[in-house]
């Protein structure tokens, strides 16, 4: 495989095939806790991507200097520093988002996605690849977050883009399903999305099987 397509593969991997949330099942708490509106979902996704990319950059640069015995505390300190930056910036400039996300902003520190990617990828790979990996994973995370929050906001709150200037009322009061806005709805939507992705993967695998069988027959 050529150098270029390899780089592209690192970047694309996080979108669907190795999606951190739907496939690897890590970093779930924030994805369910904040996705009651699209605005929150995007905010969380951007914050998370920032922390992920910055941590991967720092760890990747210093990967040869960090003794492996104390690498985990070092990783945690770096991640916590960037999380604190996100927390302070949100508190200063986007207070409504800061209040809506609440405890889930500091919880970015213990998000398994960041720890997992830093440990599995950034501590072993070059700077450029690490940035691509961080961006890919971050975008994959954000896509899922926006997907979940789109469904939940639409069905639960009856609006789109609430909290921004583009708020649209879609469903009248009587057609809203309150359960999607509360705790069970998050699990339900997430489960159905994960099932959709699994069905798509099975379909792809089936098609490939079919092809190889046909190829064998000829």
């Amino acid at each position: 495989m050529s150098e270029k397509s390899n780089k592209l593969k690192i970047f694309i991997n996080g979108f669907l095939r190795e999606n951190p949330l739907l496939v690897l099942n890590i970093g779930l708490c924030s994805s369910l806790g904040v996705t009651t509106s699209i605005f929150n979902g995007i905010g969380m996704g951007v914050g998370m991507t920032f922390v992920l990319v910055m941590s991967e950059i720092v760890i990747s640069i210093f990967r040869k200097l960090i003794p492996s015995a104390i690498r985990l505390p070092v990783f945690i300190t770096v991640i916590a520093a960037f999380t604190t930056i996100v927390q302070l910036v949100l508190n200063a400039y986007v207070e409504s988002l800061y209040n809506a996300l609440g405890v889930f902003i500091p919880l970015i520190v213990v998000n398994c996605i960041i720890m997992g990617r830093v440990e599995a990828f950034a501590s072993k790979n070059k700077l450029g690849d690490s940035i691509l990996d961080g961006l890919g994973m971050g975008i994959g995370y954000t896509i899922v977050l926006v997907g979940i929050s789109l469904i939940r906001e639409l069905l639960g709150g009856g609006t789109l883009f609430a909290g921004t200037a583009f708020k649209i009322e879609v469903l009248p009061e009587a057609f809203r399903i309150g359960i999607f806005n509360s705790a069970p709805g998050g699990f339900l939507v997430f489960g159905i999305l994960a099932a959709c992705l699994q069905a798509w993967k099975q379909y792809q695998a089936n098609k490939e099987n079919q092809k190889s069988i046909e190829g064998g027959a000829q």
Partner: protein
Amino acid sequence: METIKLFIKSALIDNVVFIQYLAICPFIGMTNDTEKATGMGLATTFVIMLATAVTWPLYKLVMVPLGLEFLQTLFFILVIASLVQLVEFFLKKMSPGLYNAMGVYLALITTNCAVLGITINCISKNYNYVQSLVYAFGSAMGFLISMVIMSGVRSRVKTANVPKAFAGTPILYICASLLSLAFLGFKGLIK
């Protein structure tokens, strides 16, 4: 009376997993058999109690007087990580049996959102020291309950005839959703 109310509220009404969405990773990842789930729940309970007992005084007695509240996240996670490490060393030396039973879970608990989440909640909800400990214990019990329930549900799911697309993890979220619906029923328990 207030104490009991707080305990029930944190264990059932505001259940950590089903209502607050904390600690979902171990909830999905570690519940494939009841024994493991109970072990994880107990180890987490222990760490949550210890972490709350340490971080509350640290925040109120050290960080507030020095004006370091903005470093809360950094301090707390470092305290939790080193506490877990300390407990691991201690158990290894003092009681190898318990270490063998709990050791595997301890490393994972550092990145368990429930621990950091509960310690931060204690501060943001302005609880005093006793209330914080009760809240922490209640939440930890809530976590233990949810782990045990889920492991029971999973043993049934294993033999059930699940649609192909839902096989594996997706069906677990549907189960969690139904359990969460059940836990919403506790809402009216305390006025």
